[in-house]
């Protein structure tokens, strides 16, 4: 063999190897791998389909099979039985058993997270492939609670001798090949997955990139195939870029104004309505969020099917009506145009936080709108934890927040936390409605579809009338995807990036 022949042979082999090895799908998000603990950073691994939960959710929040393929509820509606997928195994080739699942769920229940607040009394394995969960009261949203990432099922080999998670050995269609917290991990297709058709994407890389500008530039340059959580300004540029498709999806997150109804002014529903009527939601949605459809006409966005009531009278922008309501409530303008009652000005401090970059700008727009009707607001940009802190010590007057109603795919859990009899850290403050409490309680316990729909509608109506928390805008998730990818879809509940459903177009 001559040197030339040798060179040609090596070149051919290298070429063949390159052709055989499919390039990895690169997923870029702002979310760092802060911890391997399911209750803390576990969502990264369920979204990348490494770890599975017993149940999943479709685009309308309905429970769909996950690691459990079927479930039943006893006649007294207190005992659930979940049957595990046949031949399911972990990435270390050990079988997924009901015993292991029960242990994982017990562990999740002991940590802060949705399961901790659920009325569970017992979790146990009743057969090698059947897990039984008992509740103290009927609790219909249980499957949705089990879809949340802190309920993920990991193999016993994931834990060290102290019980801390040291590796992620899941049972999903992808398994981890390299883990480099806090920014990166790589996965490859798990050939032993029995949950469905073999995914077309063989390898993927997860990369946390904190700066939104960097994520957008990575998508534009083709260094990210899927870039999540882009800002409106960045997507305008990306829409003009060749090779990138930008998708926007309404998700169950709402920008809301949380009011302290312990304060005499906000205890009056007329003042709360006036605050709402002063808001030019369409202006905020168009100019700041770059999406007129994001203007909140009611509490829940259309993506929350059942909770969003199409026939509900929409929230309006009507400063004249706002002034009339304030006058009716006894607030009269002084010489400077500031509203005063009993010698006290209508003034509040609006707390917000800059982790979500649009909030400071929306806060400024709200300040201007409220000033127009005589309400004086100061803005205090703080840490997001200052909202629950202010709720606890009573110092919060007004808070501008972006509340996520899809912590579990059924928002009932979040609603109970936010609008219970004593309010909630991120929900009502100094306001309670026995009617709403009863409706939420009934929703928890009933499984009749028609009744549930009526109850959800009732919840929306009460919130629309009473406005303990004022919706401003609905959130949209912006994702840039390479046009070389087929089958891209966005999960509005952000449970999964759905890479197992995608394939390379070429």
């Amino acid at each position, binding site marked *: 063999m001559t040197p030339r022949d040798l060179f040609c042979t090596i070149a051919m082999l290298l070429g063949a190897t390159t052709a055989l090895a499919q390039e990895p799908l690169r997923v870029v998000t702002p979310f760092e791998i802060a911890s391997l603990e399911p209750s803390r950073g576990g969502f990264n691994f369920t979204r990348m389909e490494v770890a599975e939960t017993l149940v999943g959710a479709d685009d309308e929040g309905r429970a769909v099979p996950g690691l459990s393929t079927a479930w039943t509820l006893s006649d007294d509606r207190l005992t659930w039985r979940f049957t595990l997928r046949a031949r399911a195994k972990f990435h270390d080739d050990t079988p997924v058993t009901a015993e292991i699942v029960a242990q994982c769920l017990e562990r999740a229940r002991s940590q802060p997270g949705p399961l901790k607040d659920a009325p569970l009394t017992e979790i146990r394995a009743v057969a090698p492939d059947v897990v039984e969960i008992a509740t103290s009261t009927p609790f219909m949203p249980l499957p949705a609670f089990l879809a949340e990432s802190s309920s993920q099922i990991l193999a016993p080999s994931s834990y060290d001798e102290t019980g801390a998670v040291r590796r992620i050995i899941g049972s999903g269609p992808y398994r981890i090949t390299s883990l480099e917290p806090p920014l*990166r991990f790589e996965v490859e297709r798990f050939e032993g997955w029995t949950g469905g058709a073999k995914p077309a994407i063989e390898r993927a890389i997860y*990369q946390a990139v904190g700066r939104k500008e960097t994520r957008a530039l990575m998508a534009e340059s083709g260094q990210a195939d899927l870039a999540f959580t882009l800002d409106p300004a960045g997507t305008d540029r990306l829409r003009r870029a060749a090779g990138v498709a930008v998708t926007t999806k309404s998700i169950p997150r709402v920008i809301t104004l949380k009011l302290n109804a312990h304060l005499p002014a906000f205890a009056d529903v007329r003042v709360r309505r006036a605050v709402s009527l002063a808001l030019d939601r369409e202006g905020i949605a168009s100019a700041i969020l770059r999406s007129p459809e994001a203007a909140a006409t009611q509490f829940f966005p259309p993506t929350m099917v059942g909770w969003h009531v199409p026939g509900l009278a929409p929230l309006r922008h009507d400063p004249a009506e706002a002034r009339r309501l304030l006058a009716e409530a006894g607030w009269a303008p002084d010489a400077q145009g500031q509203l005063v009652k009993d010698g006290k000005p209508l003034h509040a401090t609006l707390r917000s936080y800059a982790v979500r970059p649009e909030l400071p700008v929306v806060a400024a727009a709200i300040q201007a709108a409220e000033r127009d009707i005589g309400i004086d607001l100061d803005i205090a940009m703080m*840490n997001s934890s200052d909202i629950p802190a202010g709720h606890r010590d009573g110092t919060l007057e007004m808070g501008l927040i972006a509340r996520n109603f899809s912590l579990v795919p059924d928002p009932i859990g979040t609603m109970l936390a936010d609008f219970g009899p004593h309010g909630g850290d*991120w929900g009502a403050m100094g306001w309670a409605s026995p009617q709403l409490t009863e409706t939420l309680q009934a929703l928890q316990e009933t499984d009749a579809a028609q009744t549930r729909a009526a109850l959800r509608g009732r919840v929306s109506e009460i919130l629309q009338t009473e406005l303990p928390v004022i919706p401003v805008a609905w959130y949209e998730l912006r994702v840039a995807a390479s046009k070389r990818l087929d089958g891209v879809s966005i999960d509005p509940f952000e449970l999964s990036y759905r890479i197992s459903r995608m394939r390379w177009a070429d």
Partner: protein
Amino acid sequence: MGRLAAVLGQRLVQAVTVAVVVSLLSFALVQLLPGDQALLIAQRRYGDDRVTTAAAEAVRAELGLDRPLALQLAEWIGQTVSGDLGRSLLSGAPVWEEIRDQLGATLTLAGAALGLALLLGPVFGGLAGLRPGGLADRTGMAAAAAFRAVPSFVLGLVLMVGCTVLFGWLPVGDSSDGLSLLLPALTLGLGLAATSARIARDGVVATLRSPFFAFARLKGLSRTAAILRHVPRNAAVPLIAYLAVSFAFLIEGVVVVEQIFAWPGIGHALTHAIEGRDVPMIQATALTLSLFLVLLNALTDLALLLVDPRRRG
């Protein structure tokens, strides 16, 4: 030899003093920061959406944050003296493991930036200094002023648009790819090179105007021979001192560049630790960085002793 021992001894005493002062200061400063530590830790652990007062109370109980501060500090000092830096309150991982990985990434980035600065700054500065007021001098110094003036987050984004988006030359955000080191290193290194070029240029000009350079020419050495013999060594003294200080600033000041390029370094980690009031992480990082700076100063002293014979006397 005596001078060398004195330098090392001095730095050792400095190291111990710095360790004690930094530990106490970082602990005290974290306690003085506004906000409820338990709430902030809960926010970092569970995310904005899940931070509640109940989660904060669970964190407070788990970590014993309601214990007297003096007791918490004493425990940390006791652990540290026994070689255990504790565990991160946020991730639960051993602090030393996190610092080791992150410091390694930052040192790699800072080293690459310094290497680029050394490659560019002294060369262009030296060339500019050989003909003060000439075209190379004026152009070079104008470029140096421009690179020095541009903030690193602007320079980083401009480089990314140019080198990644428009031409597709260099990758970003993939710390496993060696090439992805280049853009953040360039972002840091260009600013550093600009100042070191200026210092090198002034050093060269000062040497060329010095009596010993004139004497070297008078005794018959050609200009080139005199430059090669006298200029590099004399111009290097201020440059070494500057680069040592700059390296220290690089390690402490890479936060912005690490954020822009998603580089998993210590600046990035320290920011998160401060936001989440991760006291063991903050204390251990501050301690490691300050001891590293003492080590850097010691190495600078040694380098200067080696280069400048006047210091050995």
